[in-house]
């Protein structure tokens, strides 16, 4: 194993502006829908408007005869495709394969025409008659039907005697907490451009995982994966919605093959609400027992979420309780309710980001019940080891985070009495919460090449979705090779490049970064064998040895998690302002300190954490996808009804990183930050709202009417 890079470093840990900034501010960065192609045809989906039943009759006559139409694909003429395993598929149901309708918004036709306007018009002319069947889209009305779902974590865990500890605890907090269905709403709607040539397919796709797309499309279309090339130079955000592979990608590839011409399909904003999953609502039950001094005796966390009829998706909303606080007895349990909706999917921040809502509001309730400061309560229950597995943490600087963020925020000046702090008519609330996020690591490979002019090229198939990978990877290679970062560039987002994992699970810096570190280190060793000395021009070294370029391949695999419990942590403090007559809560300040391993680029890291905080503000106060239970459809499939934070919703956001190197998580010492920033913010805001108003809200998003006395 390569040792952690010893400081001082010239690039790692040093703030650096994005190397792809100029592409992005000039409009030159090429996203999937920007891909040029000759004879490009346009596809637009028509969707079912019932949640359950079968298509009795599909009238495509008018659509087929509309100007410019090349083909109307339906379940009657779309070739039968192989089922795709999940993962990489986001859901097992592939539309246009039968007359069955299993969710509102399921595609019933793909209209293809010579222009976008013609395709959109043709799709609007498709008429379906349905045999409707009874349905239920509301999991809260059928919690008694909850069953165990099969997914990637254990459903249930138990340590200690929870029953006994709860019974003997002098303080007990037993409450239910609710979060809402939410949607990713990446600004770039999913888009796929498919081109076939001599039996081989090139897909330019808005994806977080080019290899996942290749695997799924090859499987569905029954061709060798080597005949499918998937590219994603830039993706306009994903947040989980582009992590798995969804029907539109597979169907676009299949339709292009039938048409024998390039095909572009861009989902509409409305279609995005049913095309690639959503974050499920959750029903969380917390039962906490504590001593009078706040010391925890037991935590029981139970979570129920909805999933589709045809797949199990478990949002692990009791997960955080397994690892966060020291308690002699901890029990967690997850169940799902099958409803007539599409399959949910991970969304920033999955599992812990939702789980911490219940747990951290409950801890605030405990603090008030025990009469202890909320921060002090966390410190009294600080876990030195993972309380469920008993393993030590690979690294944990949470204590430093509490101190740094509290000092910066001015927490010691808080009067804990609800409603005690005000400025005229405005009640001010201060709340805090812990953040905890699981660490996901994936195997990765990379190649690093020195070219004759001394420039360095990194090749790794990973995706750029906004995280800064085009800057972070060059920083790593630059440090190893002793060259300025401006001399290094990266080619990425292509299945012809060395394979990496998907851009999800906050895994890229750790995983791909470690592969780049390995490749660059091997290259450095080879250069030294050629007689290179420190700070010598690499181009000169090559020409001296009669070479035009020199490459080294590198790889990294996390292996078994083994002896450590791996997480990232944070401490989040939020201030809200609430008018006493019109109680619309407004966030006026957030301070977060984070324990997330070595920070490679403080500039992009700070931005990413701030972005996560914005997600937390949305989760706390704005975001909710409501369904009409009688129609079985979302009420607002648009950005006017589904509210994401706008600029004026976001105050100053302060980010502090604790000094930390996690040598167990990755040879870089780095961990992940993409999701961590979105954890803990919403409960900190909810706790601040209680502090301001005295109203304890246990359901997100917090709306004005919940605060009216």
């Amino acid at each position: 194993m390569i040792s952690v890079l010893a400081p001082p470093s010239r690039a790692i840990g040093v703030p650096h502006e994005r190397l792809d900034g100029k592409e992005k501010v000039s409009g030159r960065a090429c996203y999937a829908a920007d891909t040029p192609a000759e004879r490009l045809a346009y596809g637009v989906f028509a969707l079912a408007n019932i949640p359950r039943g079968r298509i009795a009759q599909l009238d495509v006559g008018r659509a087929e005869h509309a100007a410019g139409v090349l083909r109307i694909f339906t379940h009657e003429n779309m070739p039968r495709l192989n089922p795709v395993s999940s993962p990489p598929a986001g859901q097992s149901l592939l539309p246009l394969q039968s007359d069955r309708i299993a969710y509102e918004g399921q595609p019933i036709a793909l209209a293809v025409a010579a222009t976008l306007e013609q395709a959109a018009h043709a799709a609007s002319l498709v008429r379906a008659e349905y045999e409707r069947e009874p349905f239920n889209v509301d999991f809260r009305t059928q919690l008694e039907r909850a069953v165990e779902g099969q997914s990637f974590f254990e459903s249930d865990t138990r340590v200690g005697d929870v029953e006994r500890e709860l019974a003997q605890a002098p303080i007990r907090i037993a409450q239910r907490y609710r979060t809402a269905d939410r949607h990713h709403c990446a600004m770039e709607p999913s888009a796929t451009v498919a081109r076939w040539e001599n039996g081989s397919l090139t897909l330019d796709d808005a994806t977080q995982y080019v290899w996942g797309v290749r695997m799924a499309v090859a499987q569905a279309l029954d061709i060798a994966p080597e005949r499918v090339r998937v590219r994603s130079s830039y993706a306009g955000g994903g947040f989980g919605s582009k992590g798995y592979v969804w029907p539109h990608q597979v169907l676009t590839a299949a339709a292009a093959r039938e048409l024998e011409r390039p095909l572009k399909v861009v989902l509409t904003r409305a279609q995005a609400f049913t095309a690639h999953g959503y974050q499920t609502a959750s029903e969380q039950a917390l039962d906490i027992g504590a001593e009078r001094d706040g010391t925890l005796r037991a935590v029981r966390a139970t979570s129920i979420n909805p999933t589709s009829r045809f797949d199990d998706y478990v949002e692990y909303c009791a997960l955080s309780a397994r690892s966060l606080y020291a308690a002699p007895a901890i029990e967690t349990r997850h169940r799902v309710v099958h409803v007539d909706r599409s399959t949910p999917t991970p969304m920033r921040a999955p599992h812990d980001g939702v789980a911490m809502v219940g747990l951290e509001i409950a801890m605030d309730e405990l603090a008030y019940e025990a009469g202890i400061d909320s921060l002090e309560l966390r410190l009294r229950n600080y876990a030195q080891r993972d309380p469920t597995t008993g393993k030590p943490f690979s690294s944990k600087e949470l204590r430093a985070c509490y101190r740094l963020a509290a000092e910066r925020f001015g927490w010691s000046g808080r009067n804990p009495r609800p409603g005690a702090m005000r400025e005229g008519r405005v009640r001010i609330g201060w709340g805090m919460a812990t953040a905890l996020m699981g660490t996901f690591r994936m195997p990765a490979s990379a190649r690093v090449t020195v070219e004759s002019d001394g420039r360095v090229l990194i090749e790794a198939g990973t995706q750029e979705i906004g995280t800064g990978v085009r800057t972070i990877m060059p920083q790593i290679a630059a440090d190893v090779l002793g060259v300025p970062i401006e001399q290094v560039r990266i080619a990425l987002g292509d299945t012809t490049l060395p394979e990496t994992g998907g851009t999800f699970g906050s895994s890229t810096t750790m995983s791909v970064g470690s592969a780049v570190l390995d490749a660059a280190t091997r290259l450095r060793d080879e250069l030294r064998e050629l007689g290179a000395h420190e700070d010598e021009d690499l181009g000169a070294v090559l020409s001296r040895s009669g070479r035009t370029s020199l490459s080294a391949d590198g790889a990294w695999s996390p292996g078994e998690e083994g002896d450590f419990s791996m997480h990232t942590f944070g401490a989040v403090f939020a201030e809200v302002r609430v008018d006493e007559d019109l109680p619309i809560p407004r966030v006026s300040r957030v301070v977060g300190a984070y324990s997330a391993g070595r920070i490679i680029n403080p500039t992009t890291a700070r931005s990413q954490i701030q972005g996560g905080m914005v997600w937390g503000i949305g989760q706390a106060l704005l975001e909710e996808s409501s369904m009409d239970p009688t129609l079985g459809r979302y009420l607002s499939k648009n950005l006017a009804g589904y509210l994401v934070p706008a600029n004026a919703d976001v105050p100053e956001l302060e980010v502090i990183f604790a000094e930390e190197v996690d040598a167990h998580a990755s040879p870089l010492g780095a961990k992940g930050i993409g999701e961590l920033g979105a954890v803990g913010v919403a409960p900190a805001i909810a706790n601040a709202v209680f502090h301001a108003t005295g109203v304890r809200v246990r359901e997100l998003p917090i709306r004005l009417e919940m605060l009216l006395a």
Partner: protein
Amino acid sequence: MTLLETTLRVNGTSRRLEIDPRATLLDALRERLGLMGTKKGCDRGECGACTVHVNGRRVLSCMTLAAMHEGDEITTIEGLAREGTLHPVQQAFIEHDALQCGYCTSGQIMSAVACVREGHAGDEDEIREWMSGNLCRCGAYPNIVAAVAAAAQVMEQHAPI
């Protein structure tokens, strides 16, 4: 559908087009003129990703038909830099890391240029309000505000831009 003959003047260059009367200015820029810098985020005026300038004013190009703009002076993100030099707003967006995925960035920048010219960049609160028509799901807002404030100072010194 009868096609309409239209001349669109974009970034100082006139282009004669036969265009579908249903085509939005956004789709005409992208799919007919190949100017892919202007982005489609919602296609119904809610997100601001498609913001361009029409006769110097910021306009949502998804909410207006291409055929209505004969004779108008249209500026897109591709037309903002002068002789290879980035506009001060573009430069400030890089320096303040006011972008992440970059997808909303063209619209943010076109809005920001107009926001400063309109005189709506007086302080941070004013910038937040007048930039709230441009959504950024990555959540780069604090840096966008900082970039617009910084660019406003540069633009004032070098007016008119």
